[in-house]
């Protein structure tokens, strides 16, 4: 970032943090482990993962914005019902939009588009964040979470497509002699790949914690 980027003002910095929270620090797939149903079901190819991720991002951003706009108006007794109606509305909009854009994509994702209504990530964000924050940060945070979800899905879907089909985004990588590892595009493959990514991140985090602890200990001994 250059010195005169908008991030230098405190409000912009806060917005930036809201946006980045879901992409790395609290990634919905790998850190919060939310919305596992579509994560396991549609990540058979990178393209499916990207479409599913973007559809969820739109639903998240739009419903969190509307929930946030209406947050002073909605009595707490009926808040869950209201949130679900709002979420279901935007899911329906996304469903129609996908049918209009590509029928093949709509068939590939099948019922999982409708099931975004029941994605705990969306309701969770509406309840935990959008209901307590003004529209701008709520929408930024939701968009970040959605993009983090998309990145997570694509990391799983990409690996599954490469190993299970020998292609990435439909482009053949290994030529005609590649013997696909079919189990990777079947349901168990989803668990293998998800588990492997979680393992990698856990190793990374453990290393980082150990380094931090070592640094802290060093600092303490120097201070003594």
């Amino acid at each position: 970032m250059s010195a005169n980027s908008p991030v230098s003002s405190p409000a912009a910095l806060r917005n930036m943090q809201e946006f980045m929270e879901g992409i790395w620090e609290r990634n919905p797939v790998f850190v919060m482990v939310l919305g596992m149903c579509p994560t396991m079901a549609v990540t058979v190819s990178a393209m499916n993962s990207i479409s599913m991720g973007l559809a969820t991002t739109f639903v998240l951003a739009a419903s969190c914005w509307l929930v946030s706009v209406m947050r002073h108006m909605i009595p707490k007794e009926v808040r869950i019902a209201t949130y679900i109606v709002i979420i279901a509305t935007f899911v329906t909009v996304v469903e129609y939009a996908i049918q209009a854009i590509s029928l093949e994509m709509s068939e590939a994702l099948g019922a999982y588009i409708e099931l975004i209504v029941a994605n705990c990530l969306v309701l969770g964000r509406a309840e935990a964040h959008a209901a307590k924050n003004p529209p701008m940060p709520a929408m930024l945070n939701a968009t970040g979470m959605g993009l983090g979800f998309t990145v997570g899905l694509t990391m799983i879907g990409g690996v599954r497509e490469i190993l299970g089909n020998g292609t990435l985004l439909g482009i053949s990588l290994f030529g005609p002699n590649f013997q696909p590892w079919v189990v990777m595009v079947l349901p168990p493959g989803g668990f293998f790949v998800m588990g492997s990514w979680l393992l990698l991140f856990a190793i990374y985090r453990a290393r980082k914690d150990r380094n931090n602890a070592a640094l802290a200990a060093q600092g303490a001994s120097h201070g003594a």
Partner: protein
Amino acid sequence: MSTETLAAPQVTPTATLLRVLGIVSAVCGLIIVGSYEITLPAANANRRIALERAVFKVVPTAKSIVEYYALPAGGIEQAKGGGEAPASVAKFYAAYDDAGKLTGIAAEAGAKGYADIVRIMFGYDTACQCITGIGVVSMKETPGIGDKILIDKDFQANFKALDVKLTDDLSALVNEVKTVKHGTKTNPWQIDAIAGATVTSRAVGKGINDAAQFLLPKLAPNLEKLKVKS
């Protein structure tokens, strides 16, 4: 301590609850109806293109299609635009070439496969009374096993001229279409199964047989009506 701190927690009046729910539903309803109206023409165009592509795949000489219903009591009628077909009729597509002459019939068939219903589209040649090609409309068969029905050359060769001749009184097929074990096909009405994907192969055979037994007896007496594009 004053009595005020013991007051009951704030209760939202019923009228407010109803009003909020009413407003939210109305707003959401407007959004849904609006987006439906906006996307409908594009979605319908997509469906039309997908259907034409599926028919052209099994009747390669076709340039345009007309949708018809075969009625359960016999006879056929042209489908009216829009809307779902009634459950009792069989939908089929008359395919025409550039000059508007009938070049083939396409229809959908479906039967239970390994994972779910295997839905296919088949092309029917009225001259040889045989099936000249199949394509998959939708299936959830195991990748690498069941979906070989699409790419296996030997299996596809079954549908170069699969015999579905009708008896002289046009009431049923002379020979039932049947899927046989890999390598044992001897007659033109048999389908040679893919070794290792027998269940899916059988679903294709059963689907074609069921659809042909229902559709062809109603279609055959009315072929004249279809000869030229209406």
